[in-house]
């Protein structure tokens, strides 16, 4: 007997030994009871069930011996779903995945229809467990209007836990601008960004070889809803594609691979595909970046950034020939990179680029009205697995970034994220150093970060400066959005610094006065 239950994957193998009977053809040995429980993000105790039966009817008693044993309960993906999930259906889905750089950008255009009877306020997006940990950002827009008059409305996207989710898929819930009534459709555009998803294969390459990578995904979009029609496009950086898994109908034209159209797929259907292609774009990965923003009320913001940069692609094996690298630059070191670009604020001054050895002179700064660009090169080209550590620092005027809010508090409005273009930061720490005498610091960001407070002792400090530490993992260039740090500050505290200097000079004068007035004569005149 088989029992299907709405619960995570359970396999039980059971056997039993029963007493011998003349009608029994073969004895069955007792085997171990196995319980394989796949971890689910939300353990729902009510859904975990172990069911096994054994019914033994003695032949002597009833004239027939019915053996029911070895109940193998394999509980599969719960296709019964949840009542709210089946209210929605995706009429048309188009997914464009851009794998031209090492940051994978996917654009999903979904046309969602409400086939239930009540308005639905939110919908779910599902991601396979391998993608969930590499997901850097998910954004959703609602599209209204047609063709030229499209308007885009950003929607709230939140990660959600589902009770009894099948197959450890991760979910995000998108709240509609207004609840979707029965029979209505809405078109959504979802952008999600994956990092570290291009796996170099072969894992080690020599200097003259090109870099080939694997990208694993599904030809069919993983979704909690039924999808009536869908197509997936992959955009590769060059026309060299070694292979791609063929799931009919799939074909390739130039730099584009098209999977689809697929009709009528059940919820949570998933067909894994692998695309093996050439990608020589610079795999610039910053392992750790510490940005320190020091606010001085005397007129400037000093930013110091400590980088640990690596090449995150196929590791370099063999020798590095400088002659080959410089003479045959187009073939040699195709996947290596030397030039990097940092986008800095417009009115920037006192920019320096150095490392532990000293100043690095291979850099060019171009200041502009909307932004400044710093083109810089590490001391050596970066091949797979190679590292470079350096510090970039610059100063910007205070009035561009420090403002007074309507309730009297001051706030700093600055961009979060790494100034380098097309770079993934594995661990980003932003430290905002508030001047001495600041109270009640708080940070406001459009996404979640880890916040902390520290104390830093700097020039002319008595009690130390409060530092607001914001820490985030897996940061991509789309995280370069403004954030605010609020604090209260009484302007009178600015006088603490000159007062310290004044009292130091006064002490010198008083000491000289004392020296002049003290009478050390033994004999009285």
């Amino acid at each position: 007997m088989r029992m299907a239950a709405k619960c995570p994957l359970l396999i039980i193998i059971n056997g039993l030994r029963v007493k011998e009977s003349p009608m029994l053809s073969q004895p069955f040995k007792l085997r171990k009871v196995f319980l394989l429980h796949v971890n689910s993000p939300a353990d729902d105790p009510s859904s975990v069930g172990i069911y096994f039966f054994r019914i033994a009817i003695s032949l002597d008693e009833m004239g027939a011996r019915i053996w029911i044993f070895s109940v193998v309960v394999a509980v599969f993906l719960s296709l019964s779903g949840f009542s709210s999930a089946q209210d929605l259906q995706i009429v048309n889905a188009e997914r464009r995945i851009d794998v031209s750089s090492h940051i994978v950008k996917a654009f999903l255009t979904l046309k969602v229809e409400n086939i239930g009877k009540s308005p639905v306020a939110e919908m779910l997006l599902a991601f396979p467990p391998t993608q969930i940990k590499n997901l850097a950002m998910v954004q959703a827009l609602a599209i209204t209007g047609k063709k030229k008059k499209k308007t885009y409305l950003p929607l709230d996207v939140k990660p959600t836990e589902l009770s009894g989710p099948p197959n450890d898929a991760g979910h995000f819930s998108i709240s509609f601008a207004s609840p979707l009534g029965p029979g209505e459709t809405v078109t959504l555009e979802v952008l999600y960004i994956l990092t570290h998803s291009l796996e170099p294969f072969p894992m080690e390459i020599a200097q003259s070889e090109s870099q080939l990578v694997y990208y694993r995904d599904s030809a069919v979009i993983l979704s909690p809803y039924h999808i009536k029609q869908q197509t997936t496009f992959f955009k590769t950086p060059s026309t060299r594609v070694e292979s791609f898994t063929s799931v009919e109908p799939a074909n390739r034209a130039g730099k584009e691979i098209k999977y689809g159209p697929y009709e009528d797929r059940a919820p949570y259907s998933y067909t894994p595909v692998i695309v093996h292609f050439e990608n020589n774009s610079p795999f610039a990965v910053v392992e750790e970046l510490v940005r320190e923003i020091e606010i001085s009320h005397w007129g400037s913001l000093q930013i110091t950034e400590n980088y640990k940069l690596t090449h995150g692609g196929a590791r370099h094996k063999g020798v590095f020939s400088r002659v080959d690298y410089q003479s045959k630059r187009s073939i040699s070191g195709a996947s290596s990179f030397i030039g990097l670009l940092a986008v800095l604020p417009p009115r920037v001054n006192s920019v320096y680029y150095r490392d532990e050895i000293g100043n690095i002179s291979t850099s060019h700064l171009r200041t502009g009205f909307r932004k400044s660009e710093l083109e810089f090169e590490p001391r050596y080209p970066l091949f797979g697995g190679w590292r470079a550590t350096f510090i970039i620092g610059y100063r910007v005027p205070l009035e561009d970034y420090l403002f007074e809010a309507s309730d009297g508090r001051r706030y700093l409005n600055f961009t979060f994220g790494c100034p380098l273009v097309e770079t993934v930061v594995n661990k980003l720490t932003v430290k905002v150093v508030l001047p001495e005498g600041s109270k009640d610091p708080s940070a406001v960001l459009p996404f979640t970060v880890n916040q902390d407070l520290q104390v830093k002792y700097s020039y002319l400090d008595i009690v130390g400066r409060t530092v607001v530490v914001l820490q985030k993992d897996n940061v991509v260039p789309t995280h370069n959005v403004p954030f605010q740090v609020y604090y209260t500050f009484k302007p009178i505290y600015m006088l603490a610094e000159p007062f310290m200097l004044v009292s130091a000079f006064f002490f010198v004068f008083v000491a000289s006065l004392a020296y002049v007035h003290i009478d050390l004569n033994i004999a009285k005149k």
Partner: protein
Amino acid sequence: MAAKPIASPIPVAMYPTLSVFTLAIGLVITAIFFIYEATSSRKNRSLAKELATAVVASVFLGFGSLFLLLASGVYV
């Protein structure tokens, strides 16, 4: 939302000029102080005068060194 930018109370471009002038005045008053110490005899000294000169000199020197620090890029 009222976004009033906050700037330094003294224009940043004036820091070098201010530092030169305040330091110059401070050094002149320091000179007056030490000349007074050197030329007056024990009987004629007036503590009030000495202290007043010392206070004024240290104020000017203190602010002068602050503006000198700011002008040279050490934004304290």
